[in-house]
């Protein structure tokens, strides 16, 4: 029997080999903002752990290279990723000189390359398994739980990013709350306004082009400019409309960020509602009319359920986009994870940037997986056929 190599496996093997042999695994810095000294994998771990990690990686690379069942590949990828994440935490404790509270250890390029290579292997295995939506959400929950357990266990406490966190744990959760509030709140408001507006545009054709063109124009204004432009009108409302300041409307801070995210969210929601309703088959509507449904019954029992997947797609786009854009709110005092990103850029403290960027990416990724699963579940009609 001829042995057949997996093409992606070759790419992963090359990446991983580069990551192990020619790049640094961890960086040791005398303090949090200076350039550090790069250490290779075997230098940054005690001998048993270093060789152990190399062993796990070599086995995982071998599994990646050959054509085997995706399940085996997935297990190999998960094992390699677990070994990597545990080792980097261990390297931090090993490299930090005893009783030195200024020294910082961060993952170096080799760690990131290896992480990418094995994440690629995992992504490929999951893509080939093509799990049903429920299973994908289960994978996500498992991954989330393992990361949570890792963080709780304190094995990463020696890493620089966790030191940045422990210094501002209270602020971190406050900003996290603000970030989620901004992203979800503006989404909720956009759905509340966008759905009726979309239905209206669907029914009143002359309105459609005007509304959609206006919302399109809003999208062309760069987000930092729109945030800035809203400061003045909201400030004016706060001082001149009685009661406005009391409910939290202010020129700077959360209010302009919220309104800006809301405005950006409207276009996808309205446009997809129009597209979704327009895609409802005429036969379905005729049949509903034939059995004597009123206009309102048709909207809620026929048109709306059939248009739901398209509308959910808009919600996915908006949520992911809002989670990303909410980072920019920090520039106008709106809070969120962007606070750490911009503070980190200002202080050239890259681990602080990571403290803001990593949760943002994780949050956006998790919401995309959950909403993709929801979309897939809703685009199947009960008898198993896909709706149009």
């Amino acid at each position, binding site marked *: 029997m001829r042995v057949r190599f997996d*093409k*992606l496996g070759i790419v992963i093997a090359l990446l991983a080999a580069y990551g192990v042999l020619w790049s640094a695994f961890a960086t040791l810095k005398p303090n949090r903002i200076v350039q550090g000294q790069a250490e290779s994998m075997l230098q940054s771990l005690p001998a048993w752990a270093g060789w152990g990690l190399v062993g796990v990686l070599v086995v995982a690379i071998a599994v990646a290279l050959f054509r085997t069942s995706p399940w085996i590949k997935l297990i190999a990828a998960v094992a390699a990723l677990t070994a990597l994440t545990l080792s980097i935490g261990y390297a931090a404790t090993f490299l930090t000189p005893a009783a030195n509270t200024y020294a910082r250890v961060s993952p170096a390029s080799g760690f990131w390359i290896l992480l990418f290579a094995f994440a690629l292997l995992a992504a490929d295995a999951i893509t080939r398994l093509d799990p049903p939506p429920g299973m994908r959400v289960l994978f996500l929950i498992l991954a989330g739980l393992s990361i949570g357990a890792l963080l709780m266990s304190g094995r990463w406490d020696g890493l620089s990013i966790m030191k940045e966190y422990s210094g501002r744990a209270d602020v971190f959760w406050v900003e996290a709350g603000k970030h989620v509030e901004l992203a979800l709140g503006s989404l909720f408001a956009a759905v509340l306004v966008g759905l009726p507006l979309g239905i209206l545009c669907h029914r009143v054709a002359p309105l459609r082009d005007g509304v959609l063109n206006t919302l399109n124009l809003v999208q062309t204004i760069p987000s930092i400019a729109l945030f800035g432009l809203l400061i003045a009108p909201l400030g004016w409302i706060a001082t001149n409309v009685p009661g406005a300041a009391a409910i939290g409307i202010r020129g700077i801070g959360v209010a302009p960020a919220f309104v800006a995210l809301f405005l950006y969210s409207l276009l996808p929601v309205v446009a997809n509602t129009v597209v979704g309703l327009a895609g409802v088959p005429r036969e379905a509507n005729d049949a509903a009319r034939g059995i004597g449904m009123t206009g309102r019954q048709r909207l809620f029992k026929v048109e709306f359920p059939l248009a739901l997947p398209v509308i959910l797609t808009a919600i996915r786009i908006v949520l992911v986009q809002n989670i990303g854009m909410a980072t920019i709110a920090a520039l106008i005092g709106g809070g969120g994870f962007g606070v750490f990103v911009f503070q980190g*850029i200002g202080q050239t403290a*890259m681990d602080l940037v990571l403290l803001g960027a990593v949760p943002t990416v994780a949050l956006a990724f998790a919401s995309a997986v959950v909403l993709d699963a929801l979309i897939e579940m809703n685009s199947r009609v009960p008898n198993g056929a896909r709706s149009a």
Partner: protein
Amino acid sequence: MRAWVPTILRGLLLVVLIAFLVSPDNFEPLLKPLVQPNAPAIYNQGSLLSLTLLHLRTVFIATLAATIIAVLLAILVTRPFGAEFLALSRSLVNIGQTFPPVAVLALAVPAVGFGEKPTLIALFLYGLLPIFENTLTALTNLPRSVMEAARGSGMTPFQRLIQVELPLSLPIIVAGVRLSVVISLATATIGSTVAAKTLGEVIIAGLQSNNLAFVLQGGLIVGALAVLIYDGLSAVESMLTRRTGSA
């Protein structure tokens, strides 16, 4: 509305934009009411025209690189040789689009330092996705009859790619480029938070000194550029669609 009205409006927008960039001082009375009595109403820490050109240059370089790489990758994964990568590349595009541009920008800084480079990297990576996605959609949804005719007439795979598949896909690829350019124009402004020379500098200066006129002029220039380029590429796209339709 008559058909020529939008064209005239766009022409007018272009004229106003150029007039503003060439001699912004003529527009000072318009922006004056927005600022405190002593504050400048026109950006005075650099020329708006040169910032605009730098902004366009950054977007152009990033989009050009993204287009070349994205189209090559899409061609690769749709050939028999790269077919193994097709499903994975689809999910990677999906995952990649969940990365917020600010995060990409900030994470590129430790690797390449401050300035134009992290912005180029972020715009390049972010621009790849829509172009790759569109090229992939176009190449995998070609009319079967045309493909079989090309095969039947004895064309080699390379001839089929160059003479049939790419020309037929071109309008959809251009649509991807258009989407990517509009996203990049807005995202490039964020590049100024890591010291890239773009129009974001004007907006950020406005945010820092509480100068609404700066924010407005920076935002409006970028908005106008986006509208004009979007329309220009839409025109190219419909021209290409007409041509492939009649060919």
